[in-house]
């Protein structure tokens, strides 16, 4: 009895820093944003108290940013999974344990270098002196990559692969190899075993990686700015513009709130789809 009480106090104490952190850095700013989003722009820029839905009704004015983000972020996430899965599979299943960690480090290493540097490099590669000029050399002329959605997708896959590979790798590595033997024993060909056993049991890793990448992409503004060059811009770019250039804080706040809501709703349905459908939650936890 006493022990239970004691441990509850202890739990509360241990959770307190996280709780404070959560309230001050997450809940409070969101509340401030919510309040701002119903205000109007002060004449000199910034926020002036009011209660109007105009900012929300005005959201279609930034429709392009929303459609770009909502189209390219999921697409880029899916592409990243497509590239990351074989890499993770190769590392977890085919590479001998001796080299495994070293190779995983190599996959993740680019993530530790400067993001700007990496995007500059891609600007070079995708720019007119890069791949397009090589293509011209073999006879395919007038290919434009930089400042198109393709450049953003390529950059996203490259940039977020290091975040996608490790969670998938972990879920594949901890997969009990005896399950595959059991599957083969029951008459399943290797690729059937992959589809029926390996893939479903690695979905939690795919879900974790996708969520990570998707959230980062939804809020990204550096990638579209560098590789989309103002033509392919995301909600993040609209926010930078609204808060720092036109200084229309209330409208910016409304865009942020819309972004947060979209993110939560998508995540909710995504997690339900991936984890709920196959009842992976329990499996993911063990």
């Amino acid at each position, binding site marked *: 009895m006493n022990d239970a009480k004691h441990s509850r106090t202890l739990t509360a104490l241990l959770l307190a820093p996280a709780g404070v952190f959560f309230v001050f850095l997450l809940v409070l700013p969101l509340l401030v944003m919510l309040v701002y989003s119903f205000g109007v722009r002060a004449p000199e820029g910034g926020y002036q108290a009011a209660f109007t839905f105009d900012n929300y009704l005005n959201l279609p004015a930034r429709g392009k940013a929303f459609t770009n983000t909502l189209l390219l972020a999921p697409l880029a996430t899916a592409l990243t999974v497509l590239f990351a899965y074989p890499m993770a599979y190769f590392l977890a299943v085919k590479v001998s344990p001796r080299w495994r960690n070293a190779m995983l480090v190599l996959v993740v290493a680019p993530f530790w270098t400067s993001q700007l540097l990496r995007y500059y490099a891609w600007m070079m590669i995708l720019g007119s002196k890069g791949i397009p000029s090589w293509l011209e050399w073999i006879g395919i002329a007038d290919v434009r990559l930089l400042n198109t959605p393709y450049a953003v997708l390529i950059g996203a896959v490259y940039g977020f692969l290091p975040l996608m590979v490790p969670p998938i790798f972990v879920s594949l590595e901890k997969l009990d190899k005896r399950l595959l033997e059991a599957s083969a024993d029951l008459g399943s060909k290797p690729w059937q075993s992959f589809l029926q056993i390996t893939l479903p049991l690695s979905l939690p890793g795919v879900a974790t990686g996708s969520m990570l990448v998707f959230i980062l992409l939804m809020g990204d503004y550096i990638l579209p700015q560098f590789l989309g060059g103002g033509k392919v811009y995301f909600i993040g770019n609209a926010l930078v513009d609204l808060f720092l250039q036109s200084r229309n804080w209330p409208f910016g706040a409304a865009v942020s709130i819309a972004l947060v809501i979209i993110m939560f709703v998508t995540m909710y349905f995504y997690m339900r789809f991936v984890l709920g459908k196959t*009842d992976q939650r329990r499996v993911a936890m063990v």
Partner: protein
Amino acid sequence: MFEQPVIAFENVTKTFGNVHAVVDNNLAVKAGEFLSILGPSGCGKTTSLRMMAGFEQPSSGAVSIQGQNMTGVPAFLRPVNMVFQHYALFPHLNVADNVSYGLRQRRPKPADAELAKSVADALEMVRLSGYEKRRSYELSGGQQQRVALARALINRPAVLLLDEPLAALDRKLRREMQIELQNLQRNLGITFLLVTHDQEEALSMSDRVCVMREGRIVQIGSPRELYDKPINSYVAGFVGKANFFVGPKADTVLCVRPELLEISATRKTLPQGLADAFDVTVLNRIFLGEHTEYLVRHESLGDFTVLSPRKSEHASGVFDIGDKAAVGWHKSAAQILTTT
């Protein structure tokens, strides 16, 4: 009449690096029998089974199943099924989908109604009717064991391979499952090949037992043959309890089963016609219900055990630690065995 063995090992050897897991073994599993492979941990039992299932290839020699050479035949094409030591149930599938897994790999795929019927029958066979929708983590160890059995048996394999299937169960449940396995085997007529390190299990369940030691098959025979006519002291010591005394020649021992020893208060009160009789001191006494087990010491023979049946205690008497007693055996009770 020559009967084709359902599984045969011909000079099968398996080495892992410099570990000789299985050494030059010949084995013929008869169709319809319950055969156990018995031996201590690390003697190559699992490796033997894995070569039959197709998870390992022999380093040399050949495995054949129903007369077909299995060299190069992958596991998914072999007509045998395995019950894994830790069951290896698919955690993301419910009981019904686990059990029907093997049937669902067949082409053409059986119809849903047919699958449901087969699953229901298989679950009824292992007394788990109504558990179709459960998940493996919602089941007890014994229930998981039954699901693993149903999952293998639903395919009607030529041989069911069982790798220490009962090792993880508690004693009472293990006893129950032993009986159940035996009944299943008799009713289905499927050949069972069970691996175990538990000699009691092997003796009580099997038609034949194959005793292994350090990768080699030492002896194959019925439980009674192994018990009564062990070919060496290793088998005698592994199968049942045995007392070993110094043998007449080098590398031999005299082996006497504890239950074949007679004990009494004095040499005079021992039964008539014994080959040998000795004066001993009782060192320890363990009450086992139908038997009392005495550890006794003789000045030159050393320490050995005597099992005194409850039924004859009125004649032989009960001894306390430190008591003097006399022990003897009939000529037929003593066997001379080699130690190699």
